[in-house]
């Protein structure tokens, strides 16, 4: 429909349009009269058909035809198949004429579906019609939808439909609607385990070749690349959920009698509970264990699951070593968000040595300074170091080698192909695909230890992309950060370079645990949490972080430096809620409160996201203080924590009133922005 600006019309034009209007008006009033009086004669239907042919958008006219159709068939006392057929043919013809006038008419396509589902009609006729319209406009989604409808109704095999998409793509590989239908059909075939399409490696190889033709013909056309991305996703998708790491790690020895247990899976799972996971201390099975989810996704699944264990000490005063075993009792009960059960059995064993000296380890009340001057590398003999070592040396023992030979072969061959493409085509999406292939290649390697042989190349590709395509800078930056962290956390040796401890400024005493220093690396995102579960002290300062999503898995974290980042709101710090061991926190020099949209709009009036149970208490807390009501977000993040040292200076939100709020909220606070509280 295109409205035309009015230009002076010639008398001839005016005459013609007046005639046309008169004709339509007369048809319309005759039709409405028939409709009103329930007249469904042949003549009445002809008037209606003429009206529809000139205006397929007239929905009332379609509805009348449905009434007429039912009326005329119900009058047949016995099934007269010839009569039914002629009535149906008539309807289909009217629809076809309407579609020729406007092939995007919702009403016409719907009427056809309605008629077809009333009874038999020839499949060939429908396919012929579809071919006509799908040739005319290859992206016409009415036609594609109708095609899926007919294929379902007439039980046309998915293979046949797949062949149709092949033909359409061969005509024009730029047709994303055809690629889309292809991915839908292949998913069906795989799901139904049709011979030739199951397991998926059978068709994936051919599909890679097929899409390669499109991509190599015109590397600047998007459709093929999108489909390639779907294929890559199908290739690397994990087949089943599995445990990838834990705290405490298998084979370790820890010295605290109350400690968190974290299970980290390769994908979000549900069903971690007393029935599926057993916790055994010496020979006794612990029955009063509650597993909880750290940061649920929409399916109530999560990668990280948490519980706390307290070793019952009994009467003995002497040192004793307890053997703890955590194992999958009924692994089928642990299922991924796609309902795939965890079928591998796993078990983690570690020792807890009860040594009273360690129980007395109190919190220092001195202010902790995380400065370069106070930083020193780790003494090789320290206790933490041992734990750290056991984590890396044994962590891989229960990583299950996947049946990934075909995957690595497939990806290796794709790598060769796309390296070749990039040798003659300057193409950003090609570079991006290569980077994704390289990461996929490392992720599914057959070796047990994480493979990072291609990370350097990946980092180089993302650096190039950041320059080449500044519009998507942030995306490349995020991917760069994740690849970089994968490399850092891949081995003990590479991690060691980033670890150290802090001395007290006045003496050379070591304060606090070993610290992982990932500062000043211009990271915009963090990841690889499964290899960082041991971290107690983490320095992420002077990066470009907007979010700390995932950090909640680091349950031992007691000291966190996030200063000089780009955190924009308290909600972005939400993962801190789960870090109950946190004592020292530095969020100074961020952008909290600098973005009005982030800080002023979700006050306590919003019951949607704030489903956790602070609401009542907050009301009491804020009673009589209008201004405190604006601090809901900060309350929800810090309210359940016992923070001793906090730095918030350098944020727009950190005004005087907010400082008073923090002092009231955190009774255990000793240091605020470097000043000792009394």
């Amino acid at each position, binding site marked *: 429909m295109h409205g035309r600006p009015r230009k002076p019309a010639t008398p001839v034009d005016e005459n013609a349009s007046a005639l046309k209007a008169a004709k339509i008006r007369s048809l319309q009033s005759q039709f409405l009269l028939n409709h009103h009086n329930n007249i469904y004669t042949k003549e009445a239907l002809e008037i209606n058909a003429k009206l529809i042919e000139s205006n397929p958008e007239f929905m009332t006219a379609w*509805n009348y035809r449905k009434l007429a159709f039912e009326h005329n068939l119900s009058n047949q006392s016995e099934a007269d198949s010839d009569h039914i057929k002629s009535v149906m043919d008539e309807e289909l013809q009217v629809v076809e004429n309407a579609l020729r006038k406007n092939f995007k008419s919702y009403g016409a396509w719907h009427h056809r579906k309605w008629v077809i589902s009333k009874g038999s009609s020839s499949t060939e006729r429908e396919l012929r019609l579809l071919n006509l319209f799908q040739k005319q406009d290859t992206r016409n989604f009415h036609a594609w939808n109708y095609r899926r409808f007919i294929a379902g109704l007439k039980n046309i095999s998915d293979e046949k439909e797949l062949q149709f998409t092949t033909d359409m793509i061969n005509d024009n590989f730029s047709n994303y609607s055809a690629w889309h239908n292809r991915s839908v059909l292949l998913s069906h075939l795989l799901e139904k385990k049709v011979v030739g399409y199951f397991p998926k490696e059978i068709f994936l190889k051919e599909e890679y070749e097929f899409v390669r033709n499109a991509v190599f013909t015109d590397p600047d056309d998007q459709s093929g690349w999108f489909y390639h991305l779907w294929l890559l996703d199908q290739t690397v998708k994990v087949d089943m959920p599995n445990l990838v790491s834990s705290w405490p790690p298998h084979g370790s020895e820890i010295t605290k009698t109350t400690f968190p247990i974290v299970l980290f899976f390769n994908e979000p799972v549900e069903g971690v509970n007393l029935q599926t996971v057993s916790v055994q201390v010496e020979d006794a099975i612990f029955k009063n264990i509650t597993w909880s989810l750290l940061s649920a996704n929409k399916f109530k699944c999560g990668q990280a699951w948490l519980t706390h264990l307290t070793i019952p000490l009994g009467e003995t005063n002497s040192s004793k070593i307890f053997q703890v075993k955590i194992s999958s009792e009924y692994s089928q009960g642990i299922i991924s968000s796609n309902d795939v059960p965890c079928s591998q059995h796993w078990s983690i064993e570690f020792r807890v040595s009860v040594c009273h000296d360690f129980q007395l380890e109190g919190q220092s009340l001195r202010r902790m300074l995380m400065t370069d001057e106070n930083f020193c590398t780790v003494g090789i003999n320290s206790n933490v170091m041992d734990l750290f070592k056991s984590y890396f040396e044994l962590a891989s023992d229960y990583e299950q080698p996947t049946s990934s030979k075909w995957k690595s072969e497939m990806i290796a061959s794709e790598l060769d192909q796309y390296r070749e493409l990039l040798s003659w085509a300057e193409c950003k999406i090609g570079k991006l695909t290569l980077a994704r292939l390289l990461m996929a290649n490392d992720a599914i390697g057959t070796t047990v230890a994480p493979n990072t042989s291609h990370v350097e190349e990946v980092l180089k590709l993302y650096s190039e992309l950041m320059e080449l395509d500044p519009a998507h800078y942030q995306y490349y930056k995020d991917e760069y950060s994740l690849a970089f962290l994968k490399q850092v956390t891949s081995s003990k040796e590479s991690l060691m370079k980033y670890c150290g401890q802090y001395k007290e400024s006045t003496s050379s005493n070591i304060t606090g645990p070993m610290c992982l220093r990932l500062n000043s690396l211009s990271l915009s995102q963090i990841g690889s949490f499964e290899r960082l579960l041991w971290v107690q002290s983490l320095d992420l300062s002077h990066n470009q972080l907007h979010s700390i999503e995932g950090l909640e898995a680091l349950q031992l974290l007691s000291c966190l430096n996030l200063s000089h980042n780009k955190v924009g709101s308290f909600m972005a710090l939400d993962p801190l809620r789960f870090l109950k061991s946190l004592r020292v926190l530095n969020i100074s020099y961020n952008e909290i409160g600098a973005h009005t949209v982030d800080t002023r709009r979700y006050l306590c009036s919003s019951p949607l996201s704030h489903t956790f149970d602070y609401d009542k208490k907050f009301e009491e807390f804020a009673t009589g203080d209008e201004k405190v009501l604006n601090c809901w977000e900060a309350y929800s993040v810090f309210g359940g924590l016992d923070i001793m040292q906090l730095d918030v200076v350098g944020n727009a939100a950190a005004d005087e009133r907010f400082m008073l709020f923090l002092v009231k909220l955190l009774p255990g606070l000793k240091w605020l922005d470097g000043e000792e509280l009394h």
Partner: protein
Amino acid sequence: MADDGDLLCRSHADRGLEDQLFDRERHIRYLEMNYQILPSPYESQEINHLTLAYFIISGFHILHALDRIDREAVIDWILSLQAHPKNEAELNNGQFYGFHGSRSSQFQSVGNGVSVPNNSHLASTYCALAILKTVDYDFSLIDSSSISKSMKHLQQSDGSFMPIHTGAETDLRFVYCAAVISSLLDNWSGIDKEKAKNYILSCQSYDGGFGLIPGQESHGGATYCAVASLRLMGFIEDDLVSKCTSSCILDVPLLLDWCLQRQAVDGGFQGRPNKISDTCYAFWVGGVLKILGANKFLNERTLREFLLTCQSEYGGFSKFPRQLPDLYHSYYGFTAFSMLQETGVNSLNIELGISTIHHTNI
């Protein structure tokens, strides 16, 4: 191809600087012309008369020119299109009592016992209520309970909505209509929100966008219907991206990827992958980005440039650059400029599809 490009560049340059601005006065004139008499190419849209009126009247409001209409006449005309049940019992006969799209689908009631076909439609009902809201009509005067009560019959067991009780396609468009009607009436009794939510979520495709029905190719308009409905029903909040997204019912990162990729190299938005930019998707997809709080990620400068190539010299906007304007694309051109915070243009309530109402202004 290169020659064409040069030609375009030249003609673009020839048009001069004044063409590079949003021409509010001209747009108002364009709406006035259409307000007085609809051009003949709209004859096939007679059944959607109310929808065309919605584009014009809401368009005036966005352009701060609501004084150009005869408010009382508009209200009378719209109210005359409402279908009323004869009595309370009729409300349970399965029919929908909303608004008719135009006179031709409406019959004068007759007292002879013959059933009077009632063709009121969800989309027309949405447009009628949107106009009444725009002209600040007192909603307590509307028989809203018969709309809500009878709308319930249109919801299908899978959660989707049929637009008319005589039967038609069921998809996300009409879930959106039902949600926006409920929101405007402030009466949610006509919709099973939980079912509707599940239907919407089942329409999210593997690429992050939404199809009109489950399994369909993702589409900008369907994605708007999905996200705006969830927002109206209260299942999602504003500015999802600035928060932790892991607890959201939607796959927000994937949705965000899909939406952002719809901004094409010419700056405009496309409705599906690898299609050409079209004015209206600046609203459908841009609106989703706005609801998600992610509009800061789109390139506003190039979007504005694209939209201005679709601005007609007669006022209004066309679908593609340098074509004749139509009401539909004009309206979504105006809404796009509202989202771009053009001066002299009213702010927008994205999920309702109309301007923000300031009661004192009228």
